């Protein structure tokens, strides 16, 4: 079920109303059933896979808690193997097998392992990581194991964040299912305001930019010069609005029922260095990798060369998490390399920047730095968005060949209005985000009068209705 669909509109009203109408002791049952229905809208049979990992993790966590010494580690290993095994089979089997076929092809040897027609269960990477964080936290002693199977199943399956996060931690979410939430007018309105803003980002910005991006990325041979740069910049905003829009709707719909989910995006395009951007982009995933990969590898408390390697390993794995394709691995590795170079050159850059004296920290200085960070981020997105490495390299090659005709944006000419509207909505988005300054829209709107709030949200809703794209475009991050 897509958040921008009619069915979700009805589903959300029914579930939210039922939640407050039911006595507290029955709410978890209703929420679990609703989450099952939500998930089964995609491929119903795959709910069995979800329950397989839920059962394994529920049992493993309780066994970890009841064991001592090496046994604890064994149960944790079993749980992680089960989770990673499911992920590896559904997401990476064909990728690894195809890579093997290519490698054997070089040696002119056929690959005896067959290619399987597997459909990736929707949101598998998200709920698998959320389930894994639970057993790891129980192993670390930071979380008591959940004794109620239904509540634990709901922790993994809670519909707002089931298929695309935020990837929650048990310390933040699990206890909320035991708490009784009363209907609170202000909180409900806040949740709805956030959903409204999320829908604006998805339906008005992301889905408007999608065909402009596709015009170049579907035919990379057409994407010469400026068109390639524009399409990549558009994609940065598309993927941001798509995913942060989804997160806002998820956080908002949970907030309506009284649940607080973690923040997933914090105006990343206003970051003045790449490290800051990655602390503001897909926060629930980057913090997951930080806590469970980067820190266990030693983080930055190791020799410098090792620190750089840790950064590259962490981001390469993050790339692999996004998809079973070399394009994602290169994208992740590039971000890791950029961060490693950034860390290695920090002192010399500081010395160089000091030459600019008071200009540092000025508005123009910040804008310049934001543009540099955005360009670095976009350079990786060429790989992230391309269907294959060949396409990515073709687009890079073509993109570097400027000609005068590029400035006519001929590749976007099939829909010149959309091109202009696309730029207009990006400007609106950036102005709004700058004004909000990293706060949620409901926090920002508290500074204004009630009349302003009414007018603003009426206009926002009318804009979504009239300028939104409503042909049920799936969210980009669902594929991960």
């Amino acid at each position, binding site marked *: 079920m897509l958040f921008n669909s*009619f069915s979700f509109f009805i589903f959300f009203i029914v579930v939210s109303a039922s939640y407050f109408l039911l006595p507290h002791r029955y709410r978890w049952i209703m929420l679990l059933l609703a989450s099952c229905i939500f998930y089964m809208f995609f491929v119903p049979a795959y709910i069995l896979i979800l329950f397989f990992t839920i059962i394994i993790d529920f049992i493993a966590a309780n066994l970890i808690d009841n064991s001592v010494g090496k046994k604890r580690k064994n149960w944790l290993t079993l749980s992680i193997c089960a989770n990673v095994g499911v992920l590896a089979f559904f997401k990476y089997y064909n990728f690894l097998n195809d890579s093997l076929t290519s490698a054997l092809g070089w040696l002119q040897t056929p690959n005896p392992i067959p290619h399987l027609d597997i459909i990736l269960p929707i949101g598998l990477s998200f709920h698998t990581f959320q389930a894994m964080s639970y057993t790891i936290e129980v192993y670390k002693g930071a979380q008591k194991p959940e004794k109620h199977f239904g509540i634990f199943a709901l922790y993994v399956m809670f519909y707002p964040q089931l298929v695309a996060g935020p990837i929650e931690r048990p310390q933040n979410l699990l206890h909320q299912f035991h708490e009784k939430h009363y209907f609170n*007018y202000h909180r409900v309105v806040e949740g709805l305001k956030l959903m409204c803003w999320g829908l604006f980002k998805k339906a008005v910005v992301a889905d408007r930019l999608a065909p402009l991006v596709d015009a170049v990325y579907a035919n990379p041979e057409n994407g010469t010069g400026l068109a390639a740069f524009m399409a990549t910049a558009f994609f940065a905003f598309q993927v941001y609005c798509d995913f942060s829009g989804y997160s806002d709707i998820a956080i908002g719909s949970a907030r309506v029922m009284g649940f607080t989910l973690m923040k997933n995006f914090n105006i990343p395009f206003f970051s003045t260095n790449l490290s800051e951007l990655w602390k503001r982009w897909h926060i629930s995933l980057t913090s997951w990798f930080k806590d469970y990969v980067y820190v266990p590898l030693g983080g930055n408390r190791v020799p410098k060369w090792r620190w750089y390697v840790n950064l590259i390993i962490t981001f390469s794995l993050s790339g692999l998490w996004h998809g079973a394709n070399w394009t994602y691995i290169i994208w992740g590795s590039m971000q890791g390399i950029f961060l490693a170079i950034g860390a290695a050159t920090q002192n010399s850059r500081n010395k160089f920047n000091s030459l600019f004296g008071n200009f540092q920290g000025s508005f123009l200085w910040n804008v310049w730095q934001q543009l540099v960070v955005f360009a670095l981020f976009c350079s990786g997105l060429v790989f992230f968005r391309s269907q294959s490495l060949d396409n990515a390299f073709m687009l890079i090659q073509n993109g570097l060949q400027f000609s005068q005709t590029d400035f006519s944006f001929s590749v976007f000419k*099939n*829909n010149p209005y959309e091109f202009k509207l696309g730029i207009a909505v990006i400007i609106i988005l950036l102005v709004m985000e700058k004004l909000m300054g990293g706060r949620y829209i409901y926090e920002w709107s508290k500074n204004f009068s009630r009349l302003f709030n009414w007018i603003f949200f009426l206009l926002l809703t009318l804009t979504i*209705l*009239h*300028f*939104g794209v409503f*042909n049920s475009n799936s969210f980009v991050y669902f594929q991960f």
Partner: protein
Amino acid sequence: MKRFVITAFIFLSLILAACLFLHYYIIPKLGFTPYYWGDKLITEKRNAAVASSGFNTLFFGSSMVYRQINPAAFDSVVNKNSNLDIKSFNFGVNWLASSELIYLTDNILNDIPEKPRYVFLELQRIKMVNYKNYLTTRIIYWYTPELYKFTVDAILHSRMPFYSKAGQFISHTVNFIGNQINLGYFTEALRFLAETHTAGLYRTPEEVGNGFLSLEAENKKLLESGVNPERLNRFLKDTATVYARKQASITAFSYFEKHPEDLSVYNTAYAAKLNSMIEKYKVNNIHLIIFLPPRLDRLQYQELLPVLNALPDDHRLNMADARLYPGFYLASHSFDVTHMNEKGAALYSRNLAEQFVNRMIKMN
């Protein structure tokens, strides 16, 4: 909770009022979208019908018209056997369902400067909107309050079971609301404007010709462009499905012959609408002929045969009886279960022309 309900009600009322104001006052003044903007093929065919003078007969319907009525074959039979001097145009469009069909027929006939003498309208059952197509431009562009009212009336007066009626009512209501609140209007309108201003994207009236394009011809194009012709292959694997359609026709017609009293129980709302169209067009000297196409399923016969029977004799043709037209149900005349191939289309067009000539002779 009470405060929230009141606030939500006021908010939604204001949104609805603003949408309706835009829908009925602002958007018509902007003039971005003409009545035929819902589909590329509709736009092409409308342009062709308006630009090419001399068409005095129009066929309106779904793909069962578009793919099966060949104006060239029809005209040659009519003109050979009568002095009607017919030049016809096929205005069949894929998935054109009953209410949309009425909407387009009305608007096209208003729009065309030279009014045709004869208009053929395919008789169809009110269809449920497929959930996958909910709120898309093609589905919502044609709703008017009058057509929505007719659609709901026709659903309520149909022979369908209650759950089907409920499903249909919901599907049409949701999409009607989508139309009234202008859902995604400016996005789609700008797309339409951009497309119509892009050279080469729409076929010219000359390229559209008489509007007919057989599925075989389209399939040939698909093959040339490397598309897998799954539809034909799927049908060729099991041609018995056409036989099932033939049996459905025989069973339905035999049943109503044995139980003629059941014909008197018909969808009064639907029949009233069609009769009113017949009368309305008469004023402009347009003779409306409503015809029942072949290869329908059991439920369609149950619903449509009584409706057809409720129309005046001079304004109805029945092409669905497999006992009279066994050739329509031959696998060798088929492209898929519901559509005939080029050979079948030629036969169908000739038979339709013969029935039409006979009816005209009888009338005079």
